């Protein structure tokens, strides 16, 4: 050790002093924390009132009973003391226990003869008399996973996701006949569509983030999910670009990426529709489904835009349609049977990242295509047209 210390030629080597300096702040930190916890550090931090947060994540209605799935999102244990339904105190039971540890879940069960189609307000009072409320806008038996409801959710997914995307793909042969300028226009339209969908997905993710228990930091999850997905896809595409693949192959993989991004977006749509169905809001469903079919047909268009000049096999086209539309079915299942705000936020965040990355890829493709023959207004009108297309068809849904 002595000669190491004396040796100026190896100043960067790891020695005991470095190790000590590395560990010292951690030790001191531990000491400060211990001191603070034992003495309060001279601050008077005891709360004048208890801080409690209980999220009623889901209500499950069965004939003659209401179950509330709750999660303690506060910093300390929450004990449920009373249950009030529509201005009546009702006997209830909680499993596993009325005392719910931080971030744990519990199920509050109330025997209650609710009436089909009526609305209910439910309030749970904690031991500290803090009320936590939820509302059941339209009461009806919550769909339980069985072959019939499974098939209904599958149908919903088919209608809003798979069918429209495939319908869009049928335009492939006709679009192949277009000239270069029209193909660039179509790519620009696709970029516009995706920008619109990306914003939509992002806003949905941010809105849902509010329903995520505070300690799980919904907004943070949106950021992590979106940014990680963006850069992961970017890395994958760069590796492919440098792997010596032909341009046609790269365009095909771009088409797959668009399909993936759109698929994630449709997963989000499926989640929302499934969840709406779950709480009875699907009353406006038929009209909504028609709107989705019209809107999502443009998604099929977007998927094939990069490969119009190539000859992708039928199999590739079928697979793209499945990747783009199929997730709507998966989303409807999850949203319908096991709605979970945190999971939904993650899916939507991943969708956001994927969609914006794909926009970036399309932008690169357009740049390549217009390198020799610039057509700025084609690109401009394509992007605006793409966004307007979704805005106008969106009028049917909103």
């Amino acid at each position, binding site marked *: 050790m002595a000669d190491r210390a004396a040796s100026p030629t190896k100043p960067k080597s790891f020695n005991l002093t470095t190790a000590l300096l590395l560990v010292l702040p951690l030790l001191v930190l531990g000491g400060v924390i211990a001191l603070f916890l034992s003495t309060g550090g001279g601050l008077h931090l005891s709360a004048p009132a208890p801080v409690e947060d209980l999220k009623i994540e889901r209500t499950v209605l069965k*004939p*003659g009973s209401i179950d509330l799935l709750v999660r303690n999102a506060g910093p300390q244990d929450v*004990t*449920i*003391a*009373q249950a*009030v339904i529509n*201005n*009546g*105190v*009702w*006997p*209830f*039971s909680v499993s596993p226990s*009325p005392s719910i540890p931080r971030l744990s879940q519990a199920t509050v069960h109330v*025997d*209650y*003869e609710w*009436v*089909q*189609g*009526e*609305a209910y307000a439910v309030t749970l*009072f904690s*031991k*500290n*008399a*803090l*009320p936590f409320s939820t*509302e059941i*806008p*339209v009461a009806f038996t919550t769909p339980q996973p069985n072959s019939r409801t499974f098939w209904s959710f599958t*149908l*919903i997914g088919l*209608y809003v996701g798979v069918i429209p995307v495939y319908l869009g793909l049928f335009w492939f042969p006709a679009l192949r006949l277009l000239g270069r300028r029209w193909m660039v226009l179509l790519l620009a339209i696709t970029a516009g569509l995706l920008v619109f969908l990306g914003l*939509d*997905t992002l*806003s*949905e993710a941010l*809105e849902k983030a509010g329903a995520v228990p505070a300690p799980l930091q919904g907004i943070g999850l949106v950021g992590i999910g979106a940014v990680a997905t963006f850069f992961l896809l970017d890395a994958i595409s760069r590796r492919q670009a440098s792997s010596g693949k032909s341009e046609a192959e790269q365009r095909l993989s771009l088409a797959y990426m668009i399909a993936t991004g759109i698929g994630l977006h449709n997963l*989000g*749509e499926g989640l*929302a*529709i499934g*969840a*709406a169905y779950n*709480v009875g*809001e*699907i*009353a*406006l*469903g*038929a*009209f*909504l*489904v*028609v*709107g989705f079919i019209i809107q999502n047909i443009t998604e099929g268009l977007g998927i094939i835009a990069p490969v119009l000049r190539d000859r992708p096999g039928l199999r590739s086209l079928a697979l793209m349609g499945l990747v783009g539309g199929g997730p709507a079915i998966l989303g409807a299942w999850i949203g319908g049977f096991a709605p979970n705000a945190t999971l939904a936020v993650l899916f939507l965040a991943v969708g956001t990242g994927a969609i914006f990355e794909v926009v970036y890829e399309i932008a690169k493709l357009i740049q390549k295509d217009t390198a020799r023959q610039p057509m700025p207004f084609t690109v401009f009108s394509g992007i605006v047209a793409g966004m307007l297309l979704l805005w106008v068809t969106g009028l049917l*849904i909103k």
Partner: protein
Amino acid sequence: MKDKLTRRNFLQASAVTLLGTGGAALLGRGGQKATAAPMAQMDHMQHGGMPGVVGEVDHGKNGFNPTDVLTDFDYGEVSTLPGGQTLREYRVSSVNKNIEIVPGIEFPAWTFNGRIPGPTIRCTEGDHIRIHFSNGSTHPHSMHFHGIHPSEMDGVPSSGPGLIQPGDTFTYEFDAEPFGLHLYHCHAFPLARHIAKGLYGAFIIDPKEGRPPVDRELVMVMSGFDVDFDDANDFYAVNAIPFHFDQHPIQIRVGEKVRVYLVNILEFDLINSFHLHANFFNYYPTGTSLTPSEYTDTVMQTQAQRGILEFSYKYPGTYMFHAHNTEFAELGWTGHFEVLP
């Protein structure tokens, strides 16, 4: 995208849905749910469950039991003044105290003598009354009696001693008049909060010649509790504890004459009411007349209204009594008479 709907949005959306039935027709299957027509009754409707709480509050820890409050009359320390007038002296102190209102929920109450309602102060018309009030709480309070008395004995901030500061004492002193059923409460501002926190009680002045004898006299003070301080009651009760007389019916016998001193001191809601099942009662508003004004089974009282009910049961069995503001009933203001043969 597909926003989560509130009920109002939902109703609006239902209207839009009707416009969209053209679209619905394209999708017969999906359209089945898209009806805005009234829904049919569920075929499995049964009448089993009743509102109520799970478990029971700790009366020992609360320091009072609503059943005991029914028949607990404070006649004061009685002596005779030189002129021959009867003197009654009462001791009342205000105390901050946590009261378990419903199982599991403690309400940070303000009380007279540690109970809700405060002691039922009872005397006879013409008696001289001295109430030695000491403020043992952390806020200024007062005692405001309904009745006829001089301004400085009115217990309001603007006259006499005004509010009694924590640790201070004051003796409210006046001749008891008129006979009837009255009440007292703290008159510090904000008044609604001081009353809702529990500072109230019944005040009975008997007529000189007395009322006709009955077998049982019961005091019922109707009130509510705003446990989350949003200026709306979360629970309602007679003698403070919701559902208490559901869990512990009041036992009487067939043919027994029952007199109920009924006082409403409910904050935040405009009215309260009392409905007796399978029976009718004579009603004496404010108890200031010995002739009943009404023979009925339901009376309505606004805050500070009160009256005397007299009835007896013809048949044995269990009979409900409750606020016929049924919302209050299901939030705690419900009880039973158990009529023994």
